[in-house]
């Protein structure tokens, strides 16, 4: 038992080590050789690497071996308890003036009131099914560990980013999935997302096509592969910019990310620096982002007049309408964002994990067994009445390794109840 407790503590404390960030060990640090020796021995350099280190895996393996051993022993634990209860020292010895036959009657009534059932001659039990609780907990943990091993050895889990219009082949399933559109569904009137949706067209080897939707918490099951919605990325590829000169429409130009374009008549060189999906203007005139959903986009435009190189490159915000721009001090040139060309990439996790169903089964066993183990604690009592000194003597022995204090309370309750019944029978 003590070794098991030590092992439990070791696994708990060891696993916590991995939650702390990696600390690099430099050669000139005091004790560096010891640290490096440990690293060489355990192949653990700190952080999450711990969970794949042979040392930690070995510890989990040892835990699994213990679980197997304990599970095998627990199968016969109940029978042992029934055998051993008569060897215990009496927990209560009561004397009555009634005959032993009448006391046996009182005991029988009291035991049935306390929901004890006869097992063998002179031995009564309660919550016998509770013996499966600890066994189930041990087996449940063992199954989850086994599932973890299967995941470690055979799971294929990848993070993939798919751009709108791109396809992701799943050769094992004979399927290709094409991302048609990625959408962020906001809460009505708010800037918070209530769901992220990737709309796919699934095409199989036989050329059959069908639409499927992927949402957070609602994975797509394609054969044995599961697809999970994880994250997204927005890429602004370019924008359509209208230029106004002295308040009059002058020309329009398509700007591309990272490139400088010329206004068609050659009067200006323009590029954009950043795009805000939903802008606001502070009372001080500062433009800032108010959300991530494209409602009122704004673009920071950098422009330069080649005819006047001494003026340098100038910076100006352009909005979806010119009114916002006019509220700010402007000059000869003024701009409007007519259209934004953007593409979303959907970050998905592609998982083929044979351990997952086994882990779920292990958890179910674990949950039920944990409740059973806590709320149905088996008790074994040996109750014997003998004739003595013109009356009778009652000896109660009990055994409950899991809850000795509860057993004592139960025996005290039984003794009190028998006393009460004997009093009534007198």
């Amino acid at each position: 038992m003590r070794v098991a407790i030590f092992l439990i503590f070791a696994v708990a404390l060891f696993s916590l080590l991995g939650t702390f960030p990696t600390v690099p060990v430099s050669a000139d640090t005091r004790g560096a050789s010891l640290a490096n020796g440990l690293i060489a021995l355990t192949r653990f350099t700190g952080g999450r690497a711990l969970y794949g280190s042979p040392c930690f895996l070995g510890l989990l393996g040892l835990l699994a071996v213990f679980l197997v051993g304990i599970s095998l022993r627990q199968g016969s634990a109940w029978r042992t308890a029934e055998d051993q209860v008569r060897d215990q020292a009496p927990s209560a010895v009561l004397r009555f003036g009634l005959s032993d036959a009448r006391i046996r009657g009182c005991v029988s009534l009291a035991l049935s009131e306390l929901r004890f059932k006869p097992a063998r001659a002179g031995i009564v039990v309660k919550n016998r099914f509770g013996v499966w609780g600890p066994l189930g907990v041990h087996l449940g943990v063992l199954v989850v560990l086994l599932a973890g091993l299967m995941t470690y050895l055979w799971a294929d889990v990848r993070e993939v980013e798919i751009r709108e219009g791109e396809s992701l082949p799943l050769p094992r399933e004979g399927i290709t999935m094409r991302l048609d559109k990625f959408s962020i569904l906001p809460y009505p009137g708010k800037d918070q997302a209530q769901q992220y949706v990737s709309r796919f067209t699934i095409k199989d080897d036989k050329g059959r096509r069908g639409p499927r939707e992927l949402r957070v918490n609602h994975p797509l099951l394609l054969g044995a592969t599961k697809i999970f919605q994880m994250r997204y990325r927005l890429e602004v590829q370019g924008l359509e910019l209208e230029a106004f000169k002295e308040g009059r429409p002058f020309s329009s130009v398509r700007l591309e990310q990272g490139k400088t374009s010329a206004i068609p008549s050659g009067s200006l060189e323009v590029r954009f620096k950043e795009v805000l999906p939903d802008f606001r203007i502070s009372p001080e005139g500062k433009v800032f982002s108010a959300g991530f959903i494209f409602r009122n986009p704004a673009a920071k435009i950098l422009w330069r007049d080649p005819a006047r190189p001494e003026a340098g490159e100038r910076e100006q915000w352009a909005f979806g309408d010119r009114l916002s721009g006019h509220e700010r001090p402007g000059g000869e040139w003024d701009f409007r964002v007519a259209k934004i060309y953007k593409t979303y990439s959907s970050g998905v996790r592609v998982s083929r994990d044979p351990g997952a169903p086994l882990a779920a089964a292990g958890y179910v066993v674990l949950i039920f067994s944990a409740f059973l183990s806590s709320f149905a604690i088996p008790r074994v009592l040996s109750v014997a009445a003998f004739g003595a000194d013109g009356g009778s003597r009652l000896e109660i022995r009990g055994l409950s390794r899991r809850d000795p204090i509860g057993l004592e309370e139960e025996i005290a309750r039984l003794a009190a109840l028998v006393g009460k019944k004997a009093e009534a029978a007198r």
Partner: protein
Amino acid sequence: MNAGIFQFLYLGTGILFFLAFSGEKKIVRRSAVVLGCGTLALHLFFLVRRSLEAWRPPLTNMYETLHLLAFLVTLLFFLARFKWPIDLIGGFAGLTSALLMASSAIASPEIEPLLPVLKSNWLLFHVTACFIAYSSFALAAGTALAYLWVDGVGRRDGARANLLKKMEGMTHRIILFGYPLLTLGIATGSIWAQLSWGRYWNWDPKETWAFATWMIYTAYLHLKYDKAVHPRAAAAVVVLAFGLVLFTYYGVNFWLSTLHQYA
């Protein structure tokens, strides 16, 4: 209705229970019970009102869970009081709830819409189970501390031995109550993680600390099998384990990088 009011009321309840334990005066004990029950009723009203406003149970951020935990700790004490009427434990329960309310000052009380990842039926099972477990462990830590305190001071007589035995039994039973709920919380969290993140176990710091906490309580239950282990050592393990609960719930979010940052 702000957290300060509840902090004050729980603190008052705790102080009255401490006084009732030290003075054995009926009027003080009754006042503590009345104040405690009144505080619970008021807090329940607050939680229900917030749930109706948000149209979801109060389980989705630090502010709400601190309120829930403070409420559950005192509620569980009053439920346990039917079997173990030990005023000293009421003092610890009231004090714990007051401290939890005090720490809610750093959390935002705003009702924010749910993040997409939290929009799942598993939320109710996972968070509720975890918080009932946490509250029972808080109470168990209170009884363990009370055990260590009573064990360390005072005269060694029959009454004290009886009280110690009661507190030892209470600690064990409360942990037996919380343990399957923590198991349920961790297991449903893992199943939910599989649905949401595509992995049932990520070794995320929150998961890892919850796992370590579960292991320490498992160790405690094994310690109780060993008759040679002194109850004092078992009580010390309960206090240590509650330290882990606190770090899992509170510390991980602040000091470690976790997928559970919203919690």
